[in-house]
């Protein structure tokens, strides 16, 4: 039954990819379709409100500047709101203003689609900031990532000088994708018992006569965009493990599909843009192949449990249940863990800190690779980056100029790709090393020995991949962690985004190389294999040593 429920969810995802990918393609290709009538009126009002008179295409530099400008404005307003939230409206529980380094961390975290949370939702923010800062940024950061990915795809599949208009993409992402889907799914989640209210914390006397404070709030509306936008920041401290955020097996499946369906359908959208659907399926297959390896690793090692616990003499047939919820069991917990770190959402329905050593490698590795489906748009961009790298490596081996989608991949593109690929491990490994060298870093570790190494490594990997889940035992709400992870999230988001836009800006101007019999094909099974191999090769070369120090060492020493 365990494996069956995992297979069913994957099958449903497979059914969603084509219709959803087609829809997203229609939205961003500006081909007219049936949804225009519904949405274009709303969009015209928004274009007028924001003063977007003409919607001409932008060069990559203008596009990148627009991304930065829009994000800077939201960061500034959001930061101020967090700092003065205590005195504003909609604060029935009387929560205080947020401290400055924590506000810095929080605002970067949400703007970069990371949603690493060093505050606890029950007491750290108010209803107003839950909505106007946290929920708002879940939309805008997702739409930002989506827009950049679409612009990148345009760059590598079309010809001209421009890669689209950022503000137009940004508005369309909201109006045609994120807002309507979120609203509908909010009502579905409420029907399935996720609260949605503005009432303050409820005080009840329990059956045994103890007073219990039950915090509630507008949970469902945050829960939907948290997943649809692959954000991951929870309303409550324990995120989707909290029974109000995720009350049953069926809400768990819905949340998995909400975070997974859009990233999984982007390769198909890419295939439509490239006028070569097989090319889209090649990318999708590479992602799915990697995913299946990691979800199996987590499931089987959680099911087998920890040898230390298994030796105690209780009935351990269920698997490793520490940090997991009964309603999800091992199957739904393992699947959620694999999907949330593949799609870089970062919501959790079980505590990743309590995972068995091998079960914990899967989430860590998927964030290190950062291209197994990946977050809003970013995963597709990273996978295409690996595709170009794969083409380049093959080109070197046979001594030909590498081509991808009919364009030559030349030194300028390879340099930009190298920057993006090298930035990721650098901003993970360097701060991890710094944290171990300082008392400020080491002092926060809560689990002894090798597991402590994994705690620190996981925190920075999650920040760099803009995932946001954590090995939550780490006492990370200190200025040291707030500032270092804030910077890592910032660089993790914008370095690769700008490098990729530059690649797009450069490819969009290239002349098309006609296809000949000697052209290296990138839309067949062989290339899928090369792509998976490239991803694993680069990932293993970079990260295996540190994985050996953390989870592998813990696995080998756990008795």
């Amino acid at each position, binding site marked *: 039954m365990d494996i069956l429920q995992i297979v069913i969810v994957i099958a449903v995802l497979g059914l969603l990819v084509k219709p959803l990918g087609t829809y997203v393609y229609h939205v961003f*290709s500006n*081909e007219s379709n049936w949804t225009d009538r519904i949405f274009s009126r709303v969009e015209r009002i928004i274009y007028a*409100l*924001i003063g*977007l008179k*003409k919607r*001409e295409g*932008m060069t990559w530099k*203008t596009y990148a500047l627009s991304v930065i400008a*829009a994000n800077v404005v939201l960061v500034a307003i959001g930061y101020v709101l967090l700092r003065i939230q205590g005195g504003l409206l909609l604060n029935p529980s009387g929560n205080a203003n947020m401290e400055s380094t924590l506000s810095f961390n929080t605002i970067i975290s949400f703007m970069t689609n990371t949603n690493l949370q060093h505050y606890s939702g029950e*007491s750290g923010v108010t209803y107003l900031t839950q*909505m106007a*800062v946290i*929920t*708002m940024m879940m939309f805008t950061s997702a739409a930002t990532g989506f827009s950049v990915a679409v612009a990148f795809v345009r760059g590598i*599949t079309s010809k*001209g000088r*421009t890669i*689209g208009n950022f503000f137009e993409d*940004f508005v369309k992402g*909201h109006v045609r994708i994120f807002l309507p889907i979120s609203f509908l799914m909010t*009502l579905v989640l*409420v029907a399935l*018992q996720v*609260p949605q*209210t503005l009432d303050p914390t*409820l005080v*009840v006397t*329990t*059956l*045994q006569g103890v007073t*219990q404070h*039950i*915090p509630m709030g507008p949970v469902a509306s945050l829960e939907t965009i948290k997943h649809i936008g692959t954000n991951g920041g929870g309303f409550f*401290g*324990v995120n989707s*493990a909290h*029974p*109000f955020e995720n009350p049953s097996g069926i809400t768990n499946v819905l949340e998995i599909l909400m975070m997974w369906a859009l990233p999984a359908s982007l390769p198909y959208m890419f295939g439509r*843009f490239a006028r*070569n659907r097989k090319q889209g399926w090649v990318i999708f297959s590479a992602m799915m192949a990697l995913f299946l390896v990691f979800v199996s690793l987590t499931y089987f090692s959680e099911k087998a449990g*920890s040898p*230390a*616990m298994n030796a*105690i003499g*209780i009935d351990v047939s269920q698997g490793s249940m520490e*940090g*997991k*919820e009964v*309603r999800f069991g091992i199957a739904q917990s393992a699947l959620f863990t694999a999907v949330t770190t593949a799609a870089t959402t970062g919501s959790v329905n079980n*505590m990743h*800190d309590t995972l068995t*050593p091998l079960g914990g490698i899967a989430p860590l590795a998927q964030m290190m690779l950062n291209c197994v489906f990946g977050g809003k748009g970013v995963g597709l961009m990273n996978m295409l980056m690996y595709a170009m790298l794969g083409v380049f490596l093959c080109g070197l081996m046979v001594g030909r100029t590498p081509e991808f989608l*009919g364009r030559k991949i030349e030194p300028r593109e390879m340099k930009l790709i190298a920057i993006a690929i090298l930035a990721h491990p650098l901003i993970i490994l360097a701060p991890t090393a710094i944290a171990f060298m300082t008392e400020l870093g080491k002092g926060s570790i809560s689990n*002894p020995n*090798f597991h402590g190494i*994994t705690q620190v490594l996981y925190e920075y990997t999650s920040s760099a991949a803009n995932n946001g889940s954590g090995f939550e*035992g780490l006492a990370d709400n200190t200025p040291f962690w707030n500032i270092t992870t804030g910077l890592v999230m910032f660089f993790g988001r914008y370095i690769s985004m700008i490098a990729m836009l530059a690649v797009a800006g450069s490819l969009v101007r290239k002349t098309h190389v006609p*296809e000949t019999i000697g052209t290296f094909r990138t839309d067949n099974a062989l290339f899928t294999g090369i792509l998976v191999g490239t991803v694993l090769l680069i990932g293993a070369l970079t990260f295996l040593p540190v994985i050996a120090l953390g989870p592998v060492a813990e696995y080998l*020493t756990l008795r």
Partner: protein
Amino acid sequence: MKQVSEMGSGNVNGSRGGAAWSGSVWAVAARAGIVFIILCGLVYPLVSTGAAQLLFPHQANGSLLENQEGQVVGSELIGQQFTDPAYFQGRISSIDYKAEGSGTNNYGPSNADLLARVHASIEEWKKANPDVSVDRVPIALLTNSGSGLDPHITPESAVVQIPRISKLTGVSADQLTKLVDQYTEGRDLGVFGDPRVNVLKLNLALKEYVK
């Protein structure tokens, strides 16, 4: 891929060769910021709240449970602390089911504190349940849930508590088994999630039974 299309962004078509967008990026960004804070940060959650309250008031307000006298005793989704051995007990909670927070100690599998805690629970179990051997106790009952608020236990975790509760309440084991069966919820749609028993609901029913 015979020919690279010039499609890709409708508005780009017109501008090819012509001037690219040259508006003021910062002015549009500032206005867009305000529009989207209002739209996504206020309109969306408030309209959602209104619709949810109208359509599903019970669920939207936390699925509260009442006892026979009509008093609210909690939410069916939020677990409660049961220390009285005459009640079915829930899972370990490092926060004692205090719902103003949520979480666990986040013990890694190699943490000695985790094993010490489980050993202590086993000793307690032996004292309170001399009739049920430790190897029958399911792991779920002696481990901390992720939220610390898990409202459920596995059906087996309820079954192993029956001898103790029968002895303390005088309700026969057969009747208690029936009660547990009645409150066992299957997998959602027959496949998703694990079978479970809601501890608060079960204890509410048990309380009526004992009366």
